[in-house]
């Protein structure tokens, strides 16, 4: 400090310190009034960097929390629907058990009607929505995932078209965690996985061990196309033979026993496969002969060789079809014939080596139907629409029971996955809440005003400013003029 002090020095000091204390006072005032220790990075650069980092984190956590909330709500809605579906299937299983034991047609019809109602409920669940999105359409959540046609497909299965995708929709929490939200209808309600095909019927057709591709169920039509007889007996095909004979089989698998009792071929007896003997005359052009199993041939006996007594080998050909006759496959009586549905292109392998009779066999492809089709098939079987015998009826319902059981397992599996996701999200949500609280606390620690400190600073600055004013007033009032007379 210079030894010579002028009034200008007093003035400059007064202005300088007034500025310093005023500035500190204003800062303390701003801190106390706003509750924030600093607003600009220049006030606290290091803390500002921390605050920005925390603010960024908080924004991310807020977004994560929003995602978790909405995803939790979506999955809760989904799980709720799946629980309903699971209960529905459980009820259906119970009804199937009742149906197996029910002999009264009215009782069966009543049970089938209940299954119909369950199907409607299942359809409703399949089309369930949450927040404007279909829950079971995968990533295509903006349109109904299933289309239930009133008609049936050619194979007799309820027509259900899945319009969703095979990809689940996912919510993202952060850049590494994904949570499945909209599950695909296929994995929830879809087929449970192909099992061994089942054939029920009396034509002699058998299922092979090959993997079929037809889904649901189908009717195998075994039809007669022609009969021929070994030469020598003079027997010929009757007028109504083609299409009306019910025997099938390669040469020798069926036989006629002809006894020309007249010795001239004018009359005698004829039997099929050891069945009841039928009298013929040389005037019969369409003689119906039935064997013990009810199989029929129509014969023309107008040219029986005189004196013929003996057996005649029969060759009876036919066709196989699973598309209602739209396409047919000649029976070659082999162990494996691939019968194709001309509509869908799917096929079933049939062992036709033992086919001996025309007729319709029922084909089932367990594990290839979705829940809706299984329920519909269950109702159909309860109504015995395929005219099964009691045994076959019981067996069919048992298979439906198994399919429902598998569908229930699938639903449980999906519920389990969603429940696991929900549990995970609950944990994550708690963690996000904790992190948000932690970030907020840290933000508050860094950014919020330390009020006691700010008040002390305010008071200190206020005092210093007062002292500055006081000392300035005191010094500037001290003047030699006061002492000069």
């Amino acid at each position: 400090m210079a030894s010579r002090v002028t009034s200008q020095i007093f003035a400059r000091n007064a202005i300088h310190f007034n500025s310093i204390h005023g500035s500190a006072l204003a800062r303390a005032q701003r801190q106390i009034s706003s509750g924030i220790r600093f607003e600009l990075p220049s006030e606290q650069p290091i803390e500002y960097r921390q605050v920005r980092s925390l603010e960024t984190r908080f924004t991310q956590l807020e977004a994560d929390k929003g995602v978790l909330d909405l995803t939790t709500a979506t999955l809760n809605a989904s799980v709720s629907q799946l629980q309903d579906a699971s209960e529905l299937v459980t009820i259906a299983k119970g009804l199937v058990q009742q149906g197996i034991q029910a002999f009264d047609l009215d009782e069966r019809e009543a049970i089938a009607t209940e299954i119909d109602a369950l199907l409607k409920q299942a359809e409703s669940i399949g089309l369930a929505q949450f927040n404007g999105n279909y829950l079971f359409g995968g990533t295509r959540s903006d349109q109904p995932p299933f289309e239930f046609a009133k008609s049936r497909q050619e194979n007799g299965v309820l027509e259900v078209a899945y319009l969703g995708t095979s990809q689940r929709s996912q919510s993202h929490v952060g850049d590494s965690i994904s949570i499945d939200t909209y599950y695909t209808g296929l994995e929830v309600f879809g087929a449970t996985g192909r099992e061994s095909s089942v054939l029920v019927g009396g034509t002699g057709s058998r299922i092979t061990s090959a993997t079929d591709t037809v889904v649901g169920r189908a009717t195998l039509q075994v039809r007669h196309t022609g009969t021929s007889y070994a030469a020598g007996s003079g027997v010929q095909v009757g007028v109504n033979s083609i299409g009306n004979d019910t025997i099938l089989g390669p040469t020798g698998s069926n036989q006629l026993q002809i006894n020309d009792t007249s010795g001239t071929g004018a009359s005698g007896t004829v039997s099929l496969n050891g069945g009841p003997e039928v009298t013929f005359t040389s005037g019969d052009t369409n003689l119906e002969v039935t064997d013990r199993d009810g199989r029929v041939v129509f014969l023309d006996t107008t040219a029986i060789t005189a004196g013929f007594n003996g057996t005649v080998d029969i060759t009876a050909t036919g066709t196989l079809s699973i598309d209602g006759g739209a396409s047919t496959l000649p029976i070659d009586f082999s162990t494996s014939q691939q019968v194709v549905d001309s509509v869908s292109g799917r096929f079933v392998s049939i062992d036709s080596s033992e086919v001996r009779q025309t007729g319709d066999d029922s084909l089932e492809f367990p594990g290839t139907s979705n829940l809706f089709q299984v329920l519909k098939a269950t109702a159909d079987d309860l109504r015995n629409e395929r005219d099964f015998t009691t045994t076959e009826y019981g067996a069919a319902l048992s298979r439906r029971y198994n399919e429902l059981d598998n569908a229930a397992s699938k639903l449980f599996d999906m519920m389990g996955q969603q429940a696991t996701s929900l549990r995970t999200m609950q944990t994550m949500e708690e963690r996000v809440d904790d992190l948000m609280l932690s970030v907020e606390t840290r933000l508050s620690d860094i950014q919020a005003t330390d009020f006691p400190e700010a008040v002390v600073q305010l008071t200190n600055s206020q005092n210093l400013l007062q002292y500055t004013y006081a000392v300035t007033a005191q010094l500037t009032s001290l003047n030699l003029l006061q002492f000069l007379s």
Partner: protein
Amino acid sequence: MPNFEIGLSALRTNQFALQSVSNNIANANTDGYHRRRVIQQSKLPNQLGGYRIGSGVRVARIDRMRDQVTEQSLTKAIADTNQVEQTLTIQRQVEAALLIGDNAIGKQLDEYFAEFTSLSASPNEPARRTALIEAGSQFAGALRDVTGELDNLRRSIRTQIGHELEQFNQNMLELSAVSTQISSHAAQGFDHNVELDKRDSLINEIASIYGIARNESFNGDINITISNHSIQQGNQPNALSVRENGDQLEIILDDSDAALPTDTGRLSALVDAYNRLIPEYEASLNELASSVIHQVNQVHATGISTAGSFQNLVGTQSVDDSSIPLAQALPNAPLTAGDFSVTLTDANGDRTVETISINPATDSLDDIAARLNAIPDLNASVRAGTNELQIAAAPGVQFDFAGGFDSLPDQAGVTGTSVASLSGFYTGESNNEYEVRISGSGQVGSAANLFAEVYDEDGVLLNRVNVGDGYEVGSEVELANGIQMTFESGTLIAGDSFTTPAIETPDETGLLGSLGLAGFFTGNSADTIAVDESIIDDPNRIATGRTGAPSDATNLSRFIAVGEASTMPGGQTFSQFTSELGTSIGFEINTNLALNDTLTNVRLRLEQERSGKSGVDLNEELVYLQEYQKAYEAAARVIQVTDELLTELLNII
């Protein structure tokens, strides 16, 4: 013989001193005024007999009280403080532009990327999509606002530089005039303290504008230099002017070719802000904007929106010359050599991936268009006039850049009758090419030991799938990484094979982002960034997925990853980079505040020292006033006594 001379000299001298004191008092608060002190001197004595008696007093000179070293230091301190204060003013404006208000880019950026996370919970919710677009617009708007603010600030600084130069040159003119007056007065032996005060004031004013050095000689001559250039103080005053060298400003002294350095003074701060400070922040903002635009657009372009793939697409980024290598045509674009894949979808929904190789160092936009044009069902060209890449698909065909695989692989290598098709979603982490080789022969679905073996591009066996006995014809089996394959009914022969590309990164080159094809943002810098109009008009055009399904959020995770990626210089994320912009200006301000405090204290101390030496102390002047007044009264008494003595003598006559 008594005379009046002695008294009269005392009377005159003290009256003179009284006037000097009065002038000091009058100028007590005049800035730059140096107090004066009248130096009195005894007049030569008269010889009277053997004695020498004094003949009175006279004014020897009037001293201008000052300390040379302090004055020099103060001039430098004034230059320094003005430079720092001006820099602080500009930095605070930059800080305000970057951070104040609701439009702070850091927060907008965070909100923007957080919206991708939020959207993933409900990708097809219109409100969420609108929120994302709004957040993107806010972010883009914030960048444009900040850039606009900085641009305005820079223009304002340019104007201020002109004003400062005008003031500087005016001061130089005045300095020249004052210097001339000083020389003239000095030559005539006149007092020229007033001019010296004015010169000191002018020098300090000049120093506040542009840092100068003053060197005073013992005799009071002063040498003023700017950098190493000596400033004339004669009839031809020096002048500063500003020269634009590209985007930079240079300060020129007179006709010199060399630019003056900018060290101290307000002008230095202004030129530094114009040349360095603001361009640096603008460059950082542009770097942020171009990176965000490029990376977001890359992800967006390689996704598929619910609006579907494209029939026609035009890039938003043009090149000046489509015939030169792209790396030269777009020098700032992050282009690299690599593969570029386009996926075409026919009317049946079957997808085919076509890949071309691009080397930006050698391939021009014309070359790339020609290469794309060679892809069946795709027409590509460079638009005349605008030089933008345009791609169109044949009728019934659409294209996208989402990669994936061939849904109907080329069957040329299959001699059997079974047709294979692919479905699913490729989940691999890199591009690959899978080859499926058939092992065994026979009917699909029934043959024994019939397998499809899957190899990657390195020949590594990834999967071996039974397609013979036990395989359900037409059913899906895993190929690899989410790709499913299906074999229709028919035969397969040992050695049959087919391949498919599996593309996770359809654009290895950065072409899509660089040319603005199917991007989220348009523009290429902070002042041009904007959300694409087509997305604003139709929020369904946001590519949230890679399949086009409304709730497909697979692309959103990639957007989120972009926000989290450490792709900015120093391994920073976008958010960290943005925060660092604010933090760095904060540190700069903080540093300059501390420097300013120091310099202000130095200046205050120097001003106090100067005031201690040169300032007017009223009390002191009052003491002098009393002193000279008493002396004046005494001199008057001496004259009165002399008069009485002479009267007494005359009475004798």
